[in-house]
């Protein structure tokens, strides 16, 4: 049997209650985490830039985000005259809902032992269940589906504002998201091939045997690096935040939004940062895996999970504080000419490795064939890129 053991013997009221509890806890956790993430980002950036940052509302400025949130509620809700009324109202909800939904597949705790697929459950009210809101058979594909639906939120917000800068911002955003989703998807597939399953719970269970079983190591760091870069681009975080480049586009797609609608976009953006960090931990860093010391056994995995997520939240803020924004053509070059070929090649290499292992092929012959294929493909690709550059230069000289 696969999936959450909660539903294995039928569904009764207690099961539904546990489900509701999980949803509420995840919802509340995300909201609170977002609040502190905003504070964390502002505080950390001000540290890196030798400033003090928010320090008035509450101890160390901790309540600053709360104050901002309350202020958003009481602001006037403006709608531009040219805006499309229905779509203008719909767009922020698409952003926020997709941001909430993608967190549902992240396993946030549970003790995973070395045997894959059997553990990772906790006992709530006498029922065995996973510490994640949902474990659908499509698992990680839900993240890709939600991130592709999230594009609508940004795109429709920009279009429905009936104004030029938001439209340009949203067109940039959707082009960027579509370009980087390919690289993102392929680095996910590398992990899926190794794990042999799409379910996030099983992916985590495969990494329970210590650091050398983490997919970061077994997939050979490259899928992780590609995923990190592509995720930063998907999140429209610096250095890929051309979507809201202040100098060029005022505020990008949300220029015309105010009050609580703007707050929803803001919320979605920060929640997506948290979700992407959590997904990276799940895919490459063993999720809640880690040593268990003393006391409550179910408590430690959640602590490990949170600390790993914190590291990635720090990295995202660090990116923002240190890296300058890319130019648009550099963004597209990096996506299409570097990340996609790299992840495609690495995907084929990993598949070959798995095939060799399962069919017991001669390893010298296999890797010789791989090297030959790499040489041929690489030469073709470099020739094509050179030819493209030459043609581009010739065109610009002629014009």
């Amino acid at each position, binding site marked *: 049997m696969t999936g959450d053991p909660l539903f294995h013997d039928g569904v009764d009221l207690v099961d539904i209650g546990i489900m509701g509890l999980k949803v509420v806890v995840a919802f509340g956790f995300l909201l609170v985490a977002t609040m502190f993430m905003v504070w964390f980002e502002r505080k950390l950036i001000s540290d890196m830039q030798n400033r003090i940052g928010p320090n008035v509302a509450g101890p160390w400025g901790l309540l600053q985000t709360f104050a901002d949130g309350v202020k958003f509620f009481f602001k006037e809700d403006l709608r531009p005259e040219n805006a499309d009324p229905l779509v203008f109202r719909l767009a922020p909800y698409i952003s926020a809902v997709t941001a909430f939904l993608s967190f549902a597949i992240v396993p946030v705790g549970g003790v995973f032992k070395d045997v894959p697929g059997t553990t990772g459950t906790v006992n709530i009210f006498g029922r065995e269940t996973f510490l994640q809101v949902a474990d659908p*058979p499509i698992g990680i*594909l839900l993240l890709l*589906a939600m991130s592709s639906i999230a594009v609508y939120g940004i795109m429709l917000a920009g*279009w429905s504002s009936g104004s030029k800068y938001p439209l340009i911002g*949203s067109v940039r955003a*959707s082009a960027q998201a579509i370009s980087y989703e390919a690289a993102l998807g392929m680095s996910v597939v590398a992990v899926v091939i190794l794990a042999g399953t799409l*379910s996030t719970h099983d992916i985590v269970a495969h990494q329970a045997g210590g650091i050398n079983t983490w997919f970061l190591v077994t997939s050979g760091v490259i899928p992780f690096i590609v995923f990190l870069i592509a995720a930063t681009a998907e999140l429209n975080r610096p250095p890929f935040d051309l979507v809201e480049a202040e100098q060029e586009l005022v505020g990008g797609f949300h220029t015309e939004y105010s009050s609580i609608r703007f707050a929803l976009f803001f919320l979605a953006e920060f929640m997506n940062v948290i979700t992407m960090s959590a997904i990276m931990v799940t895919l490459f860093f063993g999720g809640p895996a880690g040593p268990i010391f003393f006391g409550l056994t179910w408590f430690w995995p959640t602590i490990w999970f949170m600390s790993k997520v914190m590291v990635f939240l720090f990295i995202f803020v660090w990116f923002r504080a240190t890296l300058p924004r890319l130019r648009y053509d550099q963004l597209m070059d990096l996506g299409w000419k570097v990340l996609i070929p790299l992840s495609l090649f690495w995907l084929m290499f990993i598949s070959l490795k798995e095939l060799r292992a399962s069919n017991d092929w001669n390893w010298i012959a296999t890797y010789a064939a791989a090297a030959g294929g790499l040489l041929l493909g690489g030469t073709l690709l470099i020739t094509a890129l050179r030819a493209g550059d030459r043609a581009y230069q010739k065109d610009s000289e*002629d014009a």
Partner: protein
Amino acid sequence: MVDTIVFLVAAVICLTGALGVILARNPVHSALMLVMTLFGIAVQFVSQEAHFLAAVQVIVYAGAIVVLFLFVIMLLGVDTAQNLEIGALPAQKWAALCFGVGSLALTGYIILAVDNPVTGRPGMGGAIDETANVRLLARSLFSNYVYAFELTSLLLVIAVIGAVVLARKPVKQLPEEAGR
């Protein structure tokens, strides 16, 4: 019982979306209605236990193809309600009417003529064991239908190359344009 309710809700979503696509005056609204239809179909896939197809439906159709539609609509600036009487082909309306009635008649005939719609054959997308979903699909795609699969991907590559060639700027420009 649950299946029936899910089917009915999803069918209403599909049909509302489909009607919306042709009845909405604004092309962007039409595209959004198309997304609604695609979601309805994804729900139908899930209720048939074809989870993978449902995910792919959302990722590929709703996530990429309709986004491209919207992209084109926004870039070409046709995103306002237009008077359809101007510039329409005269025969188009009648041709559309004929095809519409024809396909409706065909659908009706199929519903009436087939007395037992249950074939008893297992579905290819929906699996008996839910973890084997992807595996079964991949097996049939890369064994029985491998030529069709490869030909389709070849077709897509040709389309991409064609688009790139068409979209490239002409190398030689007319003298009066070169000064710009």
